């Protein structure tokens, strides 16, 4: 029952009499009824205490503060209740485990509330079909939600991410192949630089592309410029994750292929890459998930159109994160709702990619 319960010291074989209970292994985790009651009692007790004190006696206000006070009171009560029946070591253990649990709960609540809140706020816009089929051209800031939509942002996001994939996937995978299969003198340098660049702030990638393409080369702000900025951040991510995927391909497969007389190129193309297929797909999705949500880089390279523009090489283009960003900054209530709607679509996109990635990863584990 309790952690300090003495175990019988090595009973000699055959000496266990019927009166003696057989040794029970000490429980390291989990709680028994007694402790569940202590937990629930402390929770309710501290809630009642804070209920009385907060606002009435201490004149505090705010929901968040209430929850924080309740939590602090709970920990104290719980420790007190436990210390009645248990030694200090056990009290510390139980309090620590509830601390760890509450950390996880807070993080989970943060994530859950983010996702749910985005959908709740965007729901008013999301229920209208025109939100998906129209653009914002000629739609005033106070126009009702039955007019206009984010078609141009959806199309823009898909086009930009498509171009970014076309640029960054071959480059990223080829870099990974260079780092793991070819292994020249420079491969160590490449690995170091690529690793450092996975942490490059997206705004710097955007600024780089902005100055080089737009200021220096006089290229207008277009979807293509945004796609280049996105690929600059995606290449290191894809290269690094594909390298990990290629590195776990068993060396025996490579050797078997080479021993059968194939060249290294044939080995890479027919053995290594197909074996690492699932890992490469994961790398791609990891890169896309990052690229799709890129706001800062797109903000300074693509401009923001209100109309549907399918040509990435001409005129500004909009995208979902950019639209959401501009919409909530406008301060108009209806526009903010539209912004949340765009954010919700973006979230659905990311969630879909994430689920695909999970399924692929699971398939990879199973096939091994």
């Amino acid at each position, binding site marked *: 029952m309790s*952690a300090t319960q003495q175990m019988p010291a090595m009973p000699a074989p055959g000496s266990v009499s019927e009166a003696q209970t057989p040794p029970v292994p000490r429980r390291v985790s989990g709680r028994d009824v007694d402790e569940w009651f202590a937990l629930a009692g402390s929770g309710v007790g501290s809630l009642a205490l804070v209920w009385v004190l907060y606002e009435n006696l201490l004149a505090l*206000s*705010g929901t*968040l*503060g209430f929850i*924080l006070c309740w939590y602090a009171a709970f920990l104290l009560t719980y420790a007190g209740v436990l210390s009645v029946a248990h030694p200090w070591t*056990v009290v*510390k*253990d139980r309090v*620590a*485990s509830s*601390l*760890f*649990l509450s950390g*996880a709960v807070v*993080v*989970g609540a*943060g*994530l859950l509330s983010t996702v749910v*809140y*985005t959908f709740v706020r965007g729901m008013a816009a999301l229920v209208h079909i025109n939100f998906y089929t129209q653009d914002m051209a000629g739609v005033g800031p106070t126009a009702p939600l039955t007019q206009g939509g984010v078609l141009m942002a959806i199309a823009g996001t898909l086009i930009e991410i498509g171009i970014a994939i076309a640029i960054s996937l071959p480059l990223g995978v*080829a*870099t990974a*192949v260079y780092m793991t*299969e*070819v292994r020249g003198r*420079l*491969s160590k340098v490449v690995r170091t*630089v*690529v690793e*450092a660049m996975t*942490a*490059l*702030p*997206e*705004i*710097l990638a955007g*600024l*780089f592309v902005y*100055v*080089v393409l737009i200021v220096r080369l006089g290229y207008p702000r277009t979807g293509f410029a945004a796609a280049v900025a996105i690929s*600059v951040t995606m290449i*290191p991510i894809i*290269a690094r994750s594909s390298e990990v995927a290629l590195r776990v391909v068993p060396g025996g497969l490579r050797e078997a292929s080479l021993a059968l007389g194939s*060249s290294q*190129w044939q080995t890479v193309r027919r053995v290594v890459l197909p074996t690492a297929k699932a890992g490469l797909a994961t790398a791609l999705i990891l890169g896309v*998930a*990052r690229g799709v*949500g890129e*706001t800062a880089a797109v*903000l300074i390279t693509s401009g923001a159109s209100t109309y549907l523009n399918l040509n990435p090489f001409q005129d500004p283009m909009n995208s979902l994160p950019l639209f*959401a*960003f501009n919409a*909530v900054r406008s301060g108009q209530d209806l526009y903010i709702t539209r*912004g949340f709607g765009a*954010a919700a679509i*973006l979230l659905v996109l*990311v*969630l879909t990619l*994430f689920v695909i990635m999970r399924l692929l990863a699971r398939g990879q584990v199973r096939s091994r």
Partner: protein
Amino acid sequence: MTLALDLSGPQATPPVPREIDPGLPTGDRVFHGAARTVGVFVLVLTGSIGLFLGLQSIPTFQHYGLNFLTRSEWQPAIDQIGISAVVLGTIEVAVVALFVSFPLALLTAVYISEYAPGRLKSMLVSAVDLMAAVPPIIYGLWAVFLFQPHIIYVARWLHTYLGWLPFLHVNTDPHAAVWEQSRYTSSVFVAGLAVSLMTIPLGCAIMRGVFAQAPIGEREAALALGATKWGMVRTVVLPFGRGGVIGGTMLSLGRALGETAAVLLIISPAFDLKFRILEAGTETISALIAGNFGDASATQLSALLSAGFILFVMTLCVNTVAAIFVNRSRSGAATEI
């Protein structure tokens, strides 16, 4: 007949010694060349960003001299540009984010690796990964519209009772009948909290990876000696994972330094050299760039690029140190994000 003819064939030409190292076949030579070219191209592309930013900041230093680093105001109209307040704001936001994300990431990582039962464990791992994939802009929306209206009460409480600490002071009266809520919004504190949401999953994933590698033998030894679970965590798991904890935290710091969209949504720009984190108004390098690039003249653009270079150097240093810590902590698979 045919046999004789066949035998006579090789005898006709003088014997050529077998080549020991025939070199690569043409196909492979092309393959190697192509792969090397791409590798070098990516190296040049990514490396040139740092080089480029560095080169671009030379004119700024020539124009403004060292004042660029020491002045705090950003007034392009009268040619007064200094970066110190912005750098300070960037560091403040990152430090606040770290203060929140470090304990939460650590607690969550320990919970996932040590306490969570089987199915919940894999669910939580997915949830943390998902959290890392959620676009920053969405955290920004959440912080501005859902979180900020609640957190200002906590900010006021901190000001009321801990306001004697200089960095928790706000220039307003917290006891006023109608207290000025707007003095507590758009602050470093709120921005840091929003950024912490983005850094938690990064730190948590790395810490969890390192904790999971704590040797099972030592865990069981601790338990067999009568340690409670917390005792085991404290004496085996945490010391073992110390490198990962430090490295993961520093990687989150690197991420926090460069966060743009959420910060830009939350803060209201202010170029004061101040440490009052609860008070409205601050500026970070990334928000400065995103907010001012559009109407910048050539000199100002160069100044923004120098600001970018400073950010680049900061993140690079932090991330390099973090990478050293993470790699040293015997963790191979823990660094994927």
